[in-house]
C-alpha cells in the first residue's frame, strides 16, 4: 500500500478517530503529516508561499475544471473552450509561464515598426524550474486578440481586417534591433473578434528542455496586411504598454506559455466524468 494510496500515513490512521474528536495536538500533527505527503507527491521541497502578485491564468483554471469533471457537473462547460485533448492525453502535468517582462525593451506608446514593417517582439520564458524528471511532450504559446472597434472596421474592405501573426524561435542572442529567428507557426486572422489563439511552439521548447539547448526566447510578429498604420499592432495584446483599455486585466490577457509534461507518476490528464 504505497504512501500515495491513502494520504493519511500509517501512523496517522490511528489518530484519525482522535481527529474526529478534534484533539488539537493530534489533528495538527496529522495534518502536518498529510501536508508532508501532499508536498512530496507534488515534488515540492517546502510549502509554497505564493506572492500577492501571483496570478492563476483563466486557461489553467478552465483546464482543471474540465479535466476534473467539475465543469460538467456544474453544467458550466464553456463550449468555446477547446480542451487540448492531444496534448493533455500525453501529460500528467501542465505548467503555465508568463514571460520575463523586465527583459522587454522599454516600449514607447506605439508598436515597433521599421519602414512601415512590424518588427517581431521577443518574449523570454524562464523554464529552469521544470523538474528534470518531467518529460515535456508539447508546448503552446497563447496570445489574446482584441477586437478592433466596429465603427472603424465596417467602413473598410474585407482585406483590411486581415492580420498575419508569425511566431518564431530566437536562435541567437539578440544584437541591437536584429533577431536571428526560425518560424514555428503562423496564422492569418480577421480583427473583428476577440479570442485566444494557440500557437504550437513544441519544437523550440523541447529543444530548450530535453536537449538543454540555450533558450533565447520566442518572437511574435504581427503584420496588418494593408499596412494601415492605425491598425498596426493594435489587434494582438502582446505588450502591457500598447493600447491598454481602461479596466483591462493585463495579467489575464498577457501571452501565456503552457507546457505539457509527464513525470512518470500516474496516468495522463484525460478528461474524467465526476464520480
Amino acid at each position: 500500500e504505497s504512501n500515495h494510496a491513502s494520504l493519511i500515513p500509517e501512523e496517522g490512521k490511528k489518530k484519525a478517530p482522535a481527529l474526529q474528536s478534534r484533539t488539537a495536538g493530534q489533528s495538527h500533527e496529522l495534518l502536518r503529516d498529510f501536508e508532508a505527503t501532499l508536498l512530496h507527491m507534488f515534488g515540492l521541497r517546502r510549502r509554497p508561499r505564493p506572492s500577492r502578485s501571483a496570478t492563476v491564468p483563466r486557461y489553467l483554471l478552465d483546464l482543471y475544471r474540465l479535466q476534473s469533471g467539475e465543469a460538467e457537473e456544474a453544467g458550466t462547460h464553456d463550449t468555446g473552450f477547446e480542451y487540448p485533448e492531444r496534448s493533455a492525453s500525453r501529460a500528467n502535468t501542465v505548467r503555465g509561464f508568463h514571460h520575463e517582462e523586465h527583459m522587454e525593451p522599454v516600449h514607447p506608446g506605439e508598436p515597433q515598426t521599421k519602414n512601415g514593417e512590424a518588427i517581431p517582439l521577443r518574449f523570454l520564458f524562464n523554464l529552469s524550474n521544470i523538474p528534470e524528471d518531467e518529460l515535456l511532450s508539447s508546448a503552446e504559446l497563447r496570445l489574446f486578440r482584441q477586437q478592433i472597434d466596429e465603427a472603424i472596421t465596417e467602413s473598410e474592405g474585407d482585406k483590411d481586417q486581415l492580420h498575419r501573426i508569425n511566431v518564431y524561435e530566437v536562435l541567437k542572442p539578440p544584437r541591437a534591433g536584429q533577431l536571428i529567428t526560425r518560424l514555428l507557426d503562423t496564422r492569418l486572422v480577421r480583427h473583428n473578434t476577440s479570442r485566444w489563439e494557440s500557437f504550437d511552439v513544441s519544437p523550440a521548447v523541447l529543444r530548450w528542455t530535453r536537449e538543454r539547448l540555450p533558450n533565447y526566447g520566442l518572437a511574435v510578429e504581427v503584420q496588418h496586411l494593408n499596412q494601415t498604420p492605425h491598425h498596426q499592432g493594435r489587434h494582438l495584446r502582446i505588450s502591457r504598454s500598447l493600447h491598454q483599455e481602461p479596466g483591462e486585466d493585463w495579467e489575464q490577457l498577457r501571452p501565456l506559455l503552457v507546457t505539457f509534461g509527464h513525470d512518470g507518476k500516474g496516468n495522463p490528464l484525460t478528461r474524467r466524468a465526476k464520480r
Partner: protein
Amino acid sequence: SPKQRGRKRNRNCRRHALYVDFSDVGWNDWIVAPPGYQVYYCHGECLFPLADHLNSTNHAIVQTLVNSVNTNIPKACCVPTELSATSMLYLDEHDKVVLKNYQEMVVEGCGCR
C-alpha cells in the same frame, strides 16, 4: 440485538471519510483547486471470513474450520482495493501555476487482504 450488531458492523474493515478543507488548514493560498480534499482511508478489523449465520448450519464442519485456524498466521489487513485519480491546480514555490494529475489518489473501496 440490532444495537449490538450495529456496533460490531462498525468495527469491520471499511472506508472512512476525512475531508480536509484547504481553507481550514490555510493551504488555499497555494492550492487553487479543488477547495478541499476527500481523504478517504481504510480502517477496521479483518475478522476470520466466516459469517456468523454459517455457524448454525453444518455445525461440526464450521467448528472444525474455526478451530483449525492457525493463530500464528497474521490477520488480513484492511487496505484500499479500488483507487481513483484526482487532479490539483496549485502554485509552486516559484509562483508558477501547475495542474497535476495523480492516479491512485482517492480510495474508492477497502477490503481485507
